[in-house]
């Protein structure tokens, strides 16, 4: 027993020793900077075997080293390096040297000599490779020293003949990164090459290793050559043949690098002439390279295929003849020529027959082919894209689609040709590919006009269940040119079908028809009677105005009518009425029309119907005039002031609705004026002259007004983008007024003195911080509430609360209206919830206690940083409310200032007896601290920021900025 105890004591004792042994160096390292190297030295000396030393080095590598102590550390490491016999430790030291020389502010030229010296004595290949890597790092750190560069290149050359592939790799890398193509490739250097490394041209040295026995070295050689090219060295054309030979290498990484190499050369020497082997002909190098790379599209390795396909897209100088070959495919069946489905479709279309059912042997082979002319292995570019688009891996297919896009954009005739293939890709099994090909088609759509049969295929995709695909297709249709009126009809029909199937696509479909109409007015014209179902003799029933399909038709017709003055003559009476209605309700979709004999009725429209910019200008003028009118109100109690404000607010709101460009500005002004109006009402004379107990009711309204003003100011500050500091100051000023009002009201209602003192102090703090925040803006705020307040400040801070309140009261009432200046661009953040629509009568049933996922789809406009600010609020009938933060990945950005939120929120509740509605809305979260950090920093007062009291800065809240949508839900009790 005793022995056992003793043993345990020893055990523990030995542990105790070990722990500080490991701890102390760490502490030392942290405490004193210069001792870092010393600590390392001690560590390394302490290490009894290589494993220990390795451990120390690993620990050491985890901590950063300051620039000034790097050199010392390097010396220690080198010293240890010479002593060390174990390869792995030396390897680690070598890698540490590389890491250390990357340290910011440390110039590694002092260790070059040592590093080179170590190379000559090193036996282990791995360590050699690592040392060369270190030299590479050093070399790239010191790009400005030709002498060093020369030395390193020499070193690299000396070790190129090493038997270990890693060393050769690193040497080639060094050559690629540092070598210069100075000496021309000449015969006279070749003999001397063995003894005088530096003299030979780097490029020819590297190209020697294109034939190395190790594929890794071959790859490294190609990469080194590419590196040379990237550094701006001129690569010689001689390499072309060698690179082409490497295209048939056994190893994929070599082939992949070779593809790049060939591409680079084709870009460097596109016009030089190369002979075609086994014939006397010669072709341009870029064509030859194009052919060779096209060949790689049917390579065995998909990585190479992707590489080759991508590369093809950027070879724009290739001759059209070769380019068109990439889409070539000659079909045959039993040695007889067959027409492709594309050709058949084209002929079918040309013959005027459309979509007859397929007949047996419709694709029967035609003429007999001469066996000699059939080329099975397509030499050159033949059918490269046909292969690429049918590839097994979707990565290749996407690359092919993108390459097609790039080539088609630069060549209209090619665009025309690749149309069929792109349209075929709409049927790919992977959504990404389908989406990409739709996007591509849109990009090249300026070059092309869709044939009817092609359009038919395109339109078939409208029924796709993926919203992204459908919307991409709508976008595509917006830009497409079609050839006949049947096409228009077809498109309309399919779009209506789509609308019927997916009612949520309404807006997108309407928008699409708007463009379709305005693009093809002449094609729409003959269709009008049919579309509007008018009849020369009979009156047809008036269609339902709320039918989205009917609206869709009208959008098409009205947009076509804009540039086709004869069209309105075909309209029936109700069409004009519907026009007026739609022009009003969907003004962004329905253009202003010049309708015969109806000018007087649509006077407003004809004013607007001038060129777009003019109407915006006039609206702007109107806005400015209204603001000027308001600014004439000097005294808040002037008679008629309130009415004027009321009217102006109404005008502004209406203006915002009519002129979408100015909606933000108009809303902003209206809200601001409403704040002023509220303030004005709250300060009405009668109220203040009465004794306190008599005006309890008025007090309540005033308190509510103050509260509302506060809320509105937050909205003003955070809901609008494009505000300048001047506006922010004005907003804060209003907020200060509201706070003053609140203070006055508290003083009047509550008798508790402590509370009052507290509020007073807080108010004074607010004033101070306002002064600090908007020091630069104060000159603009003359004669305002705050201006007066600041004059009285010395008095205020010393006086009693009651006195303060009195002063505030008078100042508030005497201060004039602060005029609002409008910034250039001001936009209101808006959100529209597209889904759920809130129209469903079927409750969403789920078991109580469990969750149900509700899909939410919303568009957000002019929201900055929606990932952090936009939240979803769910309000249950019992008043419970949940705020859900959507994931950052749920936001997409379809356009500038536009975001799309597609997310799911989880609902849950205890059981209800019957279904009821919950409300879903979007909130914009704000925090005054966040803006006071961002916006003022522009103003250049950030030095005062540090003294800002943090309590004041962090007012957080949310602003609902979308209409609430009601969702019918029904949590059922769980069955047991």
């Amino acid at each position, binding site marked *: 027993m005793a022995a056992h105890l003793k043993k345990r004591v020893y055990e523990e004792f030995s542990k105790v020793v070990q722990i500080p042994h490991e701890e102390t160096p760490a502490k030392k390292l942290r405490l004193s900077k210069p001792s870092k190297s010393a600590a390392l030295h001690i560590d390394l000396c302490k290490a009894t075997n290589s494993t220990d030393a390795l451990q120390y080095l690993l620990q050491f590598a985890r901590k950063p080293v300051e620039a000034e102590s790097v050199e010392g550390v390097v010396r220690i490491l080198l010293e240890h390096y010479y002593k060390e016999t174990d390869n792995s430790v030396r390897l680690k030291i070598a890698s540490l040297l590389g890491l250390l020389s990357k340290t910011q502010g440390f110039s590694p030229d002092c260790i070059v000599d040592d590093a080179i010296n170590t190379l000559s004595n090193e036996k282990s290949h791995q360590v050699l490779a690592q040392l060369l890597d270190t030299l590479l790092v050093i070399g790239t750190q010191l790009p400005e020293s030709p002498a060093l560069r020369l030395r390193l290149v020499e070193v690299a050359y000396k070790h190129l003949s090493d038997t270990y592939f890693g060393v050769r790799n690193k040497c080639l890398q060094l050559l690629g990164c540092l070598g210069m193509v100075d000496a021309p490739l000449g015969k006279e250097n070749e003999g001397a090459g063995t003894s005088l490394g530096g003299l030979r041209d780097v490029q020819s040295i590297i190209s020697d290793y294109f034939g190395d026995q190790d594929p890794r070295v071959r790859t490294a050689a190609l990469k080194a050559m590419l590196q040379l090219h990237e550094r701006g060295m001129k690569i010689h054309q001689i390499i072309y043949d060698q690179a082409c030979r490497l295209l048939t290498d056994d190893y994929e990484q070599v082939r992949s690098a070779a593809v790049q190499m060939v591409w680079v050369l084709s870009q460097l020497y596109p016009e030089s002439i190369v002979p075609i082997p086994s014939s006397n002909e010669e072709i341009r190098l870029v064509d030859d390279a194009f052919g060779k790379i096209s060949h790689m599209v049917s390579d065995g390795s998909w990585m190479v295929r992707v590489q080759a396909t991508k590369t093809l897209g950027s070879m724009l100088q290739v001759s059209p003849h070769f380019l068109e070959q990439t889409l070539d495919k000659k079909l045959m069946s*039993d*040695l007889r020529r067959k027409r492709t489905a594309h050709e058949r479709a084209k002929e079918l279309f040309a013959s005027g027959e459309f979509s007859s059912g397929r007949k*047996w042997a419709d694709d029967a082979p035609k003429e007999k082919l001469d*066996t000699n002319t059939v080329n099975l*292995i397509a030499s050159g570019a033949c059918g490269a894209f*046909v292969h690429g*688009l049918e590839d097994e891996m*979707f990565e290749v297919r996407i690359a092919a689609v993108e390459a097609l896009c790039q080539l088609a954009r630069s060549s209209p005739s090619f665009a025309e040709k690749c149309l069929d293939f792109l349209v075929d890709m709409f049927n790919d099994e992977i959504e990404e590919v389908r989406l990409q090909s739709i996007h591509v088609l849109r990009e090249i759509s300026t070059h092309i006009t869709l044939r009817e049969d092609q359009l038919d295929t395109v339109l078939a995709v409208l029924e796709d*269940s993926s919203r992204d695909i459908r919307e991409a297709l709508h976008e595509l249709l917006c830009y497409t040119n079609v050839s006949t009126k049947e096409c228009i009809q077809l498109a309309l029909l399919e779009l209506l079908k789509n609308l019927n199937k997916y009612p949520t696509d309404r807006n997108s479909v309407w928008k699409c028809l708007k463009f379709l109409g305005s693009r093809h007015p002449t094609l729409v014209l003959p269709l009008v009677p049919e579309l509007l179902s008018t009849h020369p003799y009979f009156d047809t029933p008036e269609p339902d105005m709320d039918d989205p399909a009917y609206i869709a038709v009208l959008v098409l017709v009205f947009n076509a009518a804009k540039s086709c003055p004869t069209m309105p003559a075909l309209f029936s009476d109700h069409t004009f009425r519907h026009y007026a209605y739609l022009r009003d309700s969907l003004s962004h979709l329905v253009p202003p029309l010049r309708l015969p004999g109806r000018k007087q009725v649509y006077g407003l429209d004809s004013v607007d119907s001038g060129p777009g910019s003019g109407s915006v200008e006039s609206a702007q003028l109107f806005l400015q005039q209204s603001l000027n009118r308001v600014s004439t109100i000097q005294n808040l109690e002037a008679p008629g002031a309130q009415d004027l404000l009321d009217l102006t607010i109404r005008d502004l709101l209406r203006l915002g609705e009519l002129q979408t460009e100015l909606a933000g500005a108009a809303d902003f002004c209206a809200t601001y004026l409403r704040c002023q109006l509220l303030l004005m009402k709250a300060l009405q004379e009668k109220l203040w002259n009465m004794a306190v107990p008599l005006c309890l009711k008025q007090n309540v309204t005033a308190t509510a007004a103050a509260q509302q003003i506060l809320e509105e100011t937050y909205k003003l500050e955070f809901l609008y983008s494009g505000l300048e500091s001047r506006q922010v100051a004005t907003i804060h000023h209003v907020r200060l007024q509201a706070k003053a009002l609140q203070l006055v009201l508290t003083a009047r209602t509550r008798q508790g003195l402590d509370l009052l003192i507290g509020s007073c102090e807080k108010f004074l703090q607010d004033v101070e911080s306002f002064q600090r925040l908007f020091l630069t803006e104060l000159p603009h705020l003359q004669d305002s509430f705050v201006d007066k307040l600041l004059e009285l400040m010395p008095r205020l801070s010393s006086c009693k609360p009651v006195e303060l309140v009195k002063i505030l009261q008078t100042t508030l009432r005497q201060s004039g209206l602060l005029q609002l200046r409008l910034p250039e661009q001001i936009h209101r953040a808006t959100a529209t919830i597209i889904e759920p629509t809130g129209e469903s009568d079927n409750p969403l049933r789920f078991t109580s206690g469990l969750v149900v996922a509700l899909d939410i789809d919303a568009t957000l406009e002019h929201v900055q940083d929606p990932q952090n600010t936009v939240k979803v609020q769910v309000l249950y009938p019992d008043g419970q409310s949940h705020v859900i933060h959507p994931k950052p990945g749920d936001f997409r950005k379809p356009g500038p200032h536009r975001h799309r939120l597609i997310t799911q929120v989880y609902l849950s509740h205890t059981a209800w007896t019957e279904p009821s509605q919950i409300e879903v809305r979007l909130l914009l979260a704000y925090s005054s601290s966040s803006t006071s950090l961002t916006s003022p920093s522009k103003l250049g007062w950030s030095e005062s920021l540090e003294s800002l009291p943090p309590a004041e800065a962090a007012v957080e809240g949310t602003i609902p900025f979308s209409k609430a949508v009601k969702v019918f839900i029904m949590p059922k009790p769980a069955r047991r």
Partner: protein
Amino acid sequence: MLDCGMHMGYNDDRRFPDFSYITQNGRLTDFLDCVIISHFHLDHCGALPYMSEMVGYDGPIYMTHPTKAICPILLEDFRKITVDKKGETNFFTSQMIKDCMKKVIPLNLHQTVQVDDELEIKAYYAGHVLGAAMVHIKVGSESVVYTGDYNMTPDRHLGAAWIDKCRPDILISESTYATTIRDSKRCRERDFLKKVHESIERGGKVLIPVFALGRAQELCILLETFWERMNLKAPIYFSTGLTEKANHYYKLFITWTNQKIRKTFVQRNMFEFKHIKAFDRSYADNPGPMVVFATPGMLHAGQSLQIFKKWAGNEKNMVIMPGYCVQGTIGHKILNGQRKLEMEGRATLDVKLQVEYMSFSAHADAKGIMQLIRMAEPRNMLLVHGEAVKMEFLKGKIEQEFSIDCYMPANGETTTVTTNPSVPVDISLNLLKREMALGGPLPDPKKPRTMHGTLIMKENSLKLVSSEQALKELGLNEHQLRFTCHVQLQDPHSDADTLHRIYTHLKSVLKGYTIQHLPDGTVIVESIVIKVSSSAEDSNTKVLLLSWSYQDEDLGSFLSSLLKKGLPSGIC
């Protein structure tokens, strides 16, 4: 033995291969090292139970996992039809199929299996049907690739065939479509889907007669994904039976399918169909649109024919023939546009429904075959599984494009292919190192280097060793071979002076060689001894005696020719 199929066209002995070709009379097991089955189609595995159980074979049978799973189902089905329906005797039994399957060893893709000491096989993906494989068979340095049936274009459920650059001596390839280049699959698929979709929208019923395995699954996937994409609601039915079992295996062998299915199966296994349900006879009379897959594929019997009869009268309906139809079947008739069909019992059937033809074949076309050749880079080519005329064309093309020999043996014909086998020789490390040390540090792959050594062939093994070691090993004495020659030289000096002059001359000519002037009156260059003696008649004519060993032949002959020219006069 590669594949063990049967001929579908015969009902007598000719349907199975004649195994006596191999054995004459003896046990099959003695002649075959193993049997490799490429995929589960009956023309590739139909005779397997017959061979292993009735003819008698006990060796290993290799096939991939999916083939092993599905093959017995097909064999059993085939047995049922021949024995139970047609009442044939002398056919293999269910038990035989089971016993046969017990002999099967499953293969994984890219797994090298050592069949015996010499033979190793490796399977590659072949597309075509689930579990189809190409096999690389290797003995020593000689190898053969057998493709079975393969497909170079991916389809909706399988990927494309792939093989690495294994450079086999012979590539045995199928050549079903030797003279065909097919249009892109996408057009056909789109057409197919459009047809079905239009018919469904009209409220029509669509009948797709299929054979149970392979294409049927592809069409199912195609329709299933289309239904999913387009959010369609019309029901799709699949006639039950053997397919259900097969579908089950398709679900299990996800790794054998294409990229899309492999990537999405974590969310949902594509073969767990959402829209496709099992068919019941009574459904055929249900109102409204529907799509039905029914067997067999040529409308000659069974469920597909029954449904066809029911639906043929309505022009809204449609039948889509997804494959080839044999002459005489109803499928063939309607494809040729026949609108009135005579049924049994003099009844006629008016065909009003639309007839569509949509070919989905899973064989490589001519371009695909060429692509595979390019991938594998074989030294010789052997075409099988096709028609002679068509193969002739492809043969010409292959010989022209790749300049390799191409063979196309007829049944029973033997083809001899000469190969260049490389013979491995063990080399002793010491010798290698010594030779390495002589040359530069790096062996240059482009320049072969000669080395000296002794090749010992002993007990079926070859060894390259240094000559000393060889002597020691073989217990032989070393013989030295020396060449001596006399060179006459006109020189007026004394012997000793002449020798010295020779010494200085050689010293000036042969730099980098050790040249010694020994006191006993000889000059030694490396191992070459030179002596001088005056001739008896004329003291001015000196006779030089040169003697060198065989190893220094080069230097020796050089010296002799050098000295024959005489000494330059300027030497003292």
